[in-house]
């Protein structure tokens, strides 16, 4: 007779899918790496240090706030690194580094820790950080250096190294973004340049191709809801298409709207943030239409050339309402139309 061995008792289910939050977060960083590489290639050391400062300031803030709250440090779940990198990719390359660090502090502190950390934040922390920097330093945030300047790998833009609280000095390499050129000078940029990223803009938003590549990777790994970028692109394309057909002299073509500015980056990396987007598919649709139409409204009739950031933040704010109003229909119950 064999001696009875102790069997461990657990409640079902006895297996797991093997997915994990930190793995998802790590993969978002992986998806953003091609973009990061392109940003460093286009802007040289300036972008490299900007992204490093942005990421490190977020991770450091997260760690320090956890220590201050006497909680276990949560930097191991990689969510702060994701926030930091995405935040850095939305900044203009010539931004002084101390401003980037300050924004990183606000991104985590105001955007995330204040709400209770990962999963409880209402707004996308990376965009909160960017909005704070844009509100505080509007000039620095709208001065764009031209990409591919010679000597970018050996020296940095002088404005990057500006001391805190000193007005940054800009030299003449500034170039207008395609959206600003469209809005203020009625100039159009070629779609090819937009898709490949041979344009001025934030460090990570210029190459639509690499953004979509990163998005495709996340969708393939089932770590992003493909509906979010798809519906946003569709909304913007349809709305712009209507206006362009009505008056092609005033309104740009749909392909220009899709490829220019931060729309690609915002739709793929920002709007699709799991924490700040709805959980149901119908809710996702409403959320995306909201973002898409706000982008079009702000870009066409608003005072700013770019509206992706505020559109997403506004839609983020509506997500708790959307999720409360829209519940999945329980199996076996009647459809809403039939129940009425």
């Amino acid at each position, binding site marked *: 007779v064999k001696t009875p061995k102790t069997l461990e008792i657990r409640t079902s289910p006895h297996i797991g*899918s093997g997915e994990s939050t930190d793995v998802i977060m790590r993969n978002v960083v992986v998806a953003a790496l091609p973009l990061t590489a392109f940003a460093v290639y286009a802007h040289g050391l300036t972008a490299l240090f900007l992204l490093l400062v942005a990421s490190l300031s977020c991770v450091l803030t997260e760690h320090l706030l956890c220590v201050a709250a006497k909680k276990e440090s949560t930097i191991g779940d990689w969510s702060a690194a994701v926030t930091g990198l995405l935040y850095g990719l939305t900044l203009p390359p010539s931004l002084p580094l101390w401003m980037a660090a300050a924004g990183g502090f606000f991104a985590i502190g105001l955007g995330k820790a204040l709400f209770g950390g990962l999963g409880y934040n209402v707004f996308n922390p990376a965009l909160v950080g960017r909005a704070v920097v844009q509100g505080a330093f509007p000039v620095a945030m709208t001065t764009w250096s031209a990409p591919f300047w010679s000597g970018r790998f050996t020296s940095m833009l002088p404005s990057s190294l500006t001391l805190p609280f000193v007005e940054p000095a800009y030299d003449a390499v500034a170039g207008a973004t395609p959206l600003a050129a469209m809005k203020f000078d009625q100039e159009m940029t070629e779609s090819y340049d937009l898709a490949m990223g041979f344009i001025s803009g934030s460090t990570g938003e210029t190459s639509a191709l690499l953004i979509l590549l990163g998005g495709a990777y996340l969708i393939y790994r089932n770590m992003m809801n493909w509906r979010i970028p798809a519906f946003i692109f569709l909304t913007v394309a349809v709305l712009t298409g209507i206006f362009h057909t009505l008056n092609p002299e005033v309104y740009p073509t749909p392909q220009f709207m899709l490829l220019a500015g931060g729309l690609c980056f915002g739709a793929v990396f920002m709007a699709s943030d799991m924490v700040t987007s709805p959980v149901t598919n119908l809710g996702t649709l409403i959320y995306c239409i909201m973002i898409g139409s706000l982008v079009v409204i702000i870009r066409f009739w608003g005072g700013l050339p770019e509206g992706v950031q505020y559109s997403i933040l506004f839609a983020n704010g509506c997500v708790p309402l959307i999720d409360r109003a829209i519940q999945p229909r329980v199996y076996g119950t009647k459809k809403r139309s039939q129940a009425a």
Partner: protein
Amino acid sequence: LRFALDQVDLADDVSRVFLGGPMMGQALSSLDIPITKGTSGIVAFTEKEQAPTDQKVYPCIRCGHCVDACPMFLNPTRLGTLARNREYDLMAEEYNLFDCFECGSCSYVCPSHIPLVQQFRVSKAMLRDIKAREKKAEP
């Protein structure tokens, strides 16, 4: 059951045994039980094969995987939040807790390793307990 596992040379090194499937099966504390007509399957894990028990639980990141997975189209992410806050009545009335048949899909897909279905079982038991007490208290 020991006889059955002996046939595949497993009885000595299993660490967890379940009657039924891996998703809803009942864990056993002993191998010395009979196999009955109702035994639909036996799942045995050795120490190496079993799922890790000490997985770190992260906060819910609202990814919606559980909402997609639920075969009853319930809202496990909301139910989970309510269970943690002990809002049992709200769970039953607004979010159809008693339509959950404990298939375990929500816990399976959760990337934050939140024990959702386990929380729902506890919530149901609490509700039943409250109901029974109320019945007893009636004159």
